[in-house]
């Protein structure tokens, strides 16, 4: 699932320029860190891919689908190819861990036996088997994050987007989550991680795309969080 962005500008009312003239290609199976200070446009870029928003200018094509022209009746089917870990998790507080994960598949109308098998498998993979009947508010931040990851990967997405998945987590928890993301990537899924976690970026070196005030400032293979010499 290739992602092609050409000349993307996104402005918000009244005159906030969140992204400006962004050209970015991400190939199938890549692992990309999206780094940059708060407000640099990372979340906006991810929301363009999920098509929560459309660009003010420029084209974005995902898997040969021009998202600007995507018909709203096709949008649900497009989103089934994506797995998204939102910055604020967006877990549903009145559903258990299991239900939070399973309802993605239920929403696709998948037979309940398969829903059960697959959901349980994913919950086990993220290490939450013992907590599958708990509610999100009974879990720690790292555990909630893992529920969000489980929910994002349960539909075996072609593209996996994670917005600050290790924000506010201690190093060990962050590391285990990072390993989860790498294993998802190893299975062939394109993974894009927006983060400002310097340790992780430097510990697991991957392609780094740096945003600065809405523009791409740097794009390098096996990059570090900061440009060499900046610190």
């Amino acid at each position, binding site marked *: 699932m290739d992602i092609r962005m050409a000349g993307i500008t996104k402005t918000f009312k009244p005159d906030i320029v969140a992204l400006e003239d962004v050209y970015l290609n991400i190939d199938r199976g890549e692992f990309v860190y999206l780094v940059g200070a708060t407000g640099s446009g990372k979340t906006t870029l991810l929301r363009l891919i999920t098509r929560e928003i459309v660009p003010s200018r420029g084209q974005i094509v995902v898997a040969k689908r021009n998202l600007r022209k995507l018909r709203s009746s096709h949008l*649900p089917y497009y989103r089934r190819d994506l797995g998204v870990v939102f910055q604020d998790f*967006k877990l*549903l507080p009145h559903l258990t861990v299991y239900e939070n994960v399973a309802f*993605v598949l239920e*929403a*696709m*109308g998948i*037979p309940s036996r398969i*829903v059960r098998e697959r959901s349980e498998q994913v919950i086990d993979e993220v290490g939450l088997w013992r907590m599958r009947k708990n509610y999100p508010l009974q879990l720690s931040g790292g555990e909630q994050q893992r529920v969000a990851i489980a929910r994002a990967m349960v539909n075996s997405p072609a593209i996996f987007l994670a917005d600050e998945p290790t924000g506010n987590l201690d190093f060990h928890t962050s590391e285990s989550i990072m390993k989860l993301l790498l294993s998802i990537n190893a299975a062939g899924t394109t993974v894009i991680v927006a983060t400002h976690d310097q340790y992780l970026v430097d510990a697991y070196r991957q392609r780094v795309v740096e945003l600065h005030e809405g523009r791409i400032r740097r794009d390098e293979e096996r990059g570090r969080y900061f440009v060499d010499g900046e610190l």
Partner: protein
Amino acid sequence: MASFNYALRDTFRLIFRHWGLSILTLVTAVSLFFLLGSSALFSLNVKNIVADVENDLVITVFMRAGEDVAPLLSTLEDAEFIDDIKAISPEEGLSILKSKLGDQAKAVSLLGENPLPWSVQIMVKRADYATPLVRDLMSFPSVEEVVYAGQLAEKLSRASYIMNRVSLAVLALAIIITALVLYNTVKIAIYSKRREISVMLLVGATKSFIAFPFVLQGMFLSTIGAVLSVALLAIAYPVIGNMIHNTLMFINVLDDRDLLFRLYLILVGTGMTLGWLCSWFAVHCYIVSAGSPD
């Protein structure tokens, strides 16, 4: 099938989560369909009675006290539109009345002296001969009163026409209120799940999938309301019918099982349709047209 089960489960969750609202909606729906059903039963009965008496070809003429029937009889004898004509003496009249009244006959006996005058029963060949004949009979000085069912039928029809107008307005209002309550209940349910709905949209649920439980919720509440009201009607109608028949014996309360069954079926069908319409409308306003990207 899986998604239908999911929707069904969600529907019941919605209904129980907002149980107070669900009960309010149910009560409103039951009231509406009870009102609808009972006014339908009322007008069906009026129609039935009117039809009954309209076909009654008998005209009863009551003479003034002490007047003789012979002149009247001889005038009418050779009229070809008359099938049968019979003079009834006060004594005969009293015994007929007593047999009609059954238990209440004692009251008549208490009157002591026979209060009835001579009367004449005329049977016309066709109902439409009755009205002109009645007019003629009234002009006889020896005639005190002319009673014929057609008159009653006319009065009843006129009364029920006016009542229908009034009850139609009341029913329209009741339908509007119920529709608003249903619409609102579904709207509130949608509102309470807006977070869930936005997440569902993000993970690729179609709008119709998301909307389905809400449509079911509205339909379910409305249909159950209709079913409950039908149950109430089915219990109350025979009881009230009996009461009416016991006090006003000349009224035959409608007891056509087929017709009643059809009426009840129509009520339930109306319940389903109303629920579907209202929730579809709410869903359309708050789910289907929502969530387009900015």
